[in-house]
C-alpha cells in the first residue's frame, strides 16, 4: 500500500516511535534537574559579556550555572519580572543586575536578602548597599559617543542644549535602564527645577528619543546624529566594530557635575533554593579577577577594586571626576520622577 507523509504522520507508528518517547525524555529531563550542584542566576548584564564569566565559574568550581539572560536592549520582560512574579517561591539564587537601581528596587520589594561577601572589602562604600542587599562591581560610565565627522565635539552633557547640535543628538528613552538612573542622578544633584529645565531644553533642541542606548550609539555611528549619551560599553563596542566614533567622558572640568558610574550589582535572593552556591557565585563575581576580565572584555568596564589590571583604553576610577550621586538615593528618586519622565517621553 502506498504510504504518504501525512499518512505516516497520522499513524500510531509515528507517534509511538517519535512523540511518546520524546515526551517521556522531556519529562525525565525536567524532573532530573537539581541532583547536581547548581546555581540559578538571572542576568541583566548583556549575555555576550556575562556568559563567559559564568562559564569560567562553572569550570573552576564544578557548580553548574543555570542562567536566565535578559537585556534592556531587547526590552525583554525576563529577569526582573520573573524575580517579582516568583517572589513567593523563588527559583533564582542570584541576580546579576547591570546597574544598581534595579537592585535597589528589588530590595525595596523584599526580593533580596543581605549578604556581606568577603570579596566586597575593597569596593568603595558608595557602590554598596549599607544593609548588604547588593554590592557593586565593574562599572560602566555614562559617556558621550561622538561621530568623528561632527563639526564640534561636546565635552559636557550641556551640549544637548547647544543650538549648534539642534536635531543632531540622541538619547535613549529615560523610562528605561541606565538613562533612568542618569536622569534620577541629575534630579538628586541639580534639584527638580534645573533638571526639568535641562530636559525641556533637550526637547526644544529636538533631541531624538531612541528605544535603547545601543540604538542611540548606532545613530551616531551611522552619522545621523553628532553625539549621544550612552553607556561606555555601547561606545567601546561601536569603536571596536570600526565605526567612525570617539568616546568622550563628559563634565570633567572643575565646576562640572562629573561622570556617572553605574556598577553591576550582585544580589542574593531571599529564599534562594541553592543559598550556599549562590554566595559562592557572588564571591566570584565580586572578585578582582572577574573585574579584570570585564575590563579586558569588549565591554571595557571600570574595576571598582584598586590595583586591578586594565587595558590602556579603560579609564581608571581614580582618574575620573565622578558624579557625587548616592545610588540608593538615586534609586528612591527614580520612582518620584516617573510621572515627569513619562510625560517627557510622551507616555
Amino acid at each position, binding site marked *: 500500500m502506498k504510504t*504518504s*507523509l501525512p499518512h505516516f504522520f497520522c499513524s500510531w507508528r509515528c507517534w509511538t516511535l517519535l512523540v511518546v518517547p*520524546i*515526551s517521556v525524555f*522531556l519529562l525525565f529531563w525536567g524532573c532530573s534537574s537539581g541532583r547536581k550542584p547548581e546555581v540559578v542566576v538571572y542576568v541583566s548584564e548583556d*549575555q555576550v559579556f556575562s556568559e563567559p564569566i559564568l562559564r569560567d565559574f562553572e569550570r573552576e568550581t564544578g557548580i553548574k550555572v543555570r542562567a536566565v539572560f535578559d537585556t534592556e536592549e531587547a526590552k525583554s520582560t525576563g529577569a526582573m519580572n520573573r524575580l517579582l512574579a516568583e517572589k513567593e517561591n523563588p527559583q533564582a539564587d542570584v541576580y546579576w543586575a547591570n546597574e544598581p537601581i534595579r537592585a535597589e528596587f528589588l530590595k525595596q520589594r523584599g526580593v533580596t536578602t543581605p549578604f556581606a561577601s568577603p570579596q566586597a572589602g575593597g569596593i568603595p562604600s558608595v557602590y554598596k548597599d549599607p544593609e548588604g542587599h547588593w554590592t557593586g562591581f565593574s562599572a560602566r560610565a555614562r559617556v558621550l559617543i561622538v561621530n568623528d565627522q561632527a563639526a564640534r565635539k561636546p565635552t559636557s552633557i550641556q551640549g544637548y542644549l547647544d543650538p549648534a547640535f539642534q536635531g543632531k543628538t540622541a538619547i535613549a528613552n529615560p523610562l528605561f535602564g541606565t538613562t533612568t538612573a542618569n536622569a534620577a542622578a541629575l534630579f538628586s544633584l541639580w534639584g527638580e527645577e534645573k533638571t526639568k529645565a535641562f530636559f525641556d531644553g533637550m526637547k526644544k533642541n529636538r533631541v531624538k528619543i531612541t528605544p535603547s542606548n545601543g540604538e542611540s550609539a548606532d545613530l551616531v555611528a*551611522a552619522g545621523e546624529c553628532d553625539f549621544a549619551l550612552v553607556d561606555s560599553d555601547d561606545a567601546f563596542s561601536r569603536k571596536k566594530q570600526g565605526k567612525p566614533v570617539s568616546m568622550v567622558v563628559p563634565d570633567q572640568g572643575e565646576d562640572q557635575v562629573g561622570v556617572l558610574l553605574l556598577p553591576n550589582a550582585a544580589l542574593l535572593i531571599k529564599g534562594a533554593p541553592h543559598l550556599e552556591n549562590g554566595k559562592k557565585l557572588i564571591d566570584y563575581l565580586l572578585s578582582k579577577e572577574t573585574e579584570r576580565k570585564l575590563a579586558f572584555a569588549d565591554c571595557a568596564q571600570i574595576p571598582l577594586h584598586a590595583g586591578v589590571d586594565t587595558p590602556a583604553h579603560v579609564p581608571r576610577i581614580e582618574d575620573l571626576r565622578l558624579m557625587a550621586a548616592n545610588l540608593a538615593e538615586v534609586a528612591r528618586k527614580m520612582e518620584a520622577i516617573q510621572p515627569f519622565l513619562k510625560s517627557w517621553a510622551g507616555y
Partner: protein
Amino acid sequence: MGMDRRTALRLVFALWALNALLPVFAMIHRSLIPGGHFSLSAYTRMFTWAREWVLLENSLGLALATTLVAALLGLPLSLLLARTDLSGRGALFLLFVLPLLLPPMILAYGWSILLAGDGLLGKIWGHARTSFLFSSGGGVLVLATSFLPLVLLFTMTSLLSANPRLEEAARLSARTPRILLGITIPQAIPALLTALLLVFCLALGETGAPTFLRINVFAVESLTQFSAFYDFASATAAATPLLLVTLLAFWGFQFFGTGRGAVLQPPPAGGGPEPIRLGRLRPCLLCFAGLLWMALVGLPLFALIFRSADLTAFAEALMGAGSSLGRSLLYAGLGASLVLVFGFLIGYGRTGEILGYWSEAIPLFLFALPGSILGIGLISLWNRPAMGGIYGSPAILILGLLAQYMILGAWITKSALIQIPRSMEEAGAMAGASWTTRLTRITIPLTRKGLFAAWLLAFLFCLRDTGLAMVVYPPGRETLPIRLFTLMANGRPSLISALCVLILLSAAVPFTVLGFLYARSRS
C-alpha cells in the same frame, strides 16, 4: 463502557480552557487587587489617558494596514502560484513562505542592515533611508511580509482543492477572467478571510517588530508596563483593548458567515482544476513574482546572510547555540503535537456542534494575547513548591505554547473535518463502532493531510515564539530565538546574523527528518 462523545469532548475543551484561562484569570486577579485591595485604578487610568486612544488608533491602523496589504498581495499571488502554469511555482511558494520561519523582528533587523549607512540601500538612498523603516510604513512592510505566508497557505490550499466541475462547466460559456471572478475567487474567500483574521490578530499582538521599529502600539505599551515600570496590573489592563478588538473581529467573521467554510482541505481525489494557461504573459509574471520576492523577502534575508558570511561567526553560533537549537526543535515538536491533539478534538467537537462559538473565540483571543502577559500568568499560577516538576521544567513552556497556538490546530482540522461526509461516521455507528473507534479508524485517516498541515504550522509558530518563551523558559535552557534576542545587545553583528540564518535553517531540520522517515516508510 467508555465515556460518551459529548462529555469527552467537553472535558477536553474544559481541560484546555483551564490551562489557558487560569493564567489569564491570575493576571486579571492581580490587576484588580493591586496591593491586596480591590481597585479598578489600573483600568480607569488606562482608559482615561488620551495616549491610550492614540495607541488604539496606532494598533488598529497597523493591524488593518498589514491585513490589507497581506490580502492585496496574497490573493493574486495565491492565484498565480496555485492555479496557473507558471514555471517554478513550487520553488516560489517555498521562497515566499520563508518569513514564516522567523520572528518578524529578524526581518526588521535585516532591513535595518540594508538601510544602515554602510548597507546596500543606505548607500543609495542617503540620510532619508531609515525614516521609512522606523515608521508605521516600515511596520506594515515587515509584518505584511512576515504574515503573507499564512494567506498563501490558506488561500492556495483552498484554490487547489476547489471542485473542478464548476469551472469546467463555466468554461463552456465564459472566459478565464470571468471564471476567476465568478467562481474561483469566491470559492477561496472563506479561506482567505480565515487567514486574514489570523494575520490581523498576529499584527495586533506583535511586540518584537514594533518595539524594534519604535512604533507605539498597545502590545508594546503592555510590554513597557512590564519592562519599565514592573506594573503587572497596568500591563494586564493595557491588553484588554486587544481582547475587545479580537472578539469584535471574531464576531464580525462569524457574522459574514465565513467561519464554517474556512478551509485547508486536501485536493479532490480526481485532481484539482485545470491550470490557467498564461501564454505570453508567463515570463513577465515569473519576473514579477521573482522581483516581488526579492523586494519583500530576498533583500533583508540576503543582507543577513551576507553579514554572516564569516565562517568563524557560523562556527561560534553553532558551538554556542547547538543545545539551544536542539531544545527549540524539541519544544516546538512537543508543543505542536499537543496543539494538534487538543486542536483536533476541539475542532471535531466544533464541527459536530458539540462545542459552541466560545471554543473558537477564546483560543483566538489567546492567540492575540501578548506572550509576556500569558507568561507572567503562568508563573503566578504554576510557581508553587508542589508544582516544581512543571514550573522548573520545559513543561511550563509547552503548556504556554498549547494555550497560545491551539487555535491553529482547531481551525485547520475543523476545516479538514468539514470535508468528510457525515454518512461515513454514521455508517460506522450503524455497524456498532464506538465513537473512539470511528475517530481512529475513519475520521483521523481521512483528515490526515489536514492534521499534518496543522502540525507543521503549529510547529513553526512554536519554533519562532519569543514573547512567551522569554518569560518562562527554564533557567539554562533557552531556545534559539531567545538566545538570539539576548545576544542582540552588543553581540557581534556577524554572530547575530549567523544566528538568524541558523534559525532559518533549523526550521528545515524537522522537514528533512520527516522526509527521511517518509522515504523509509515507502520502502
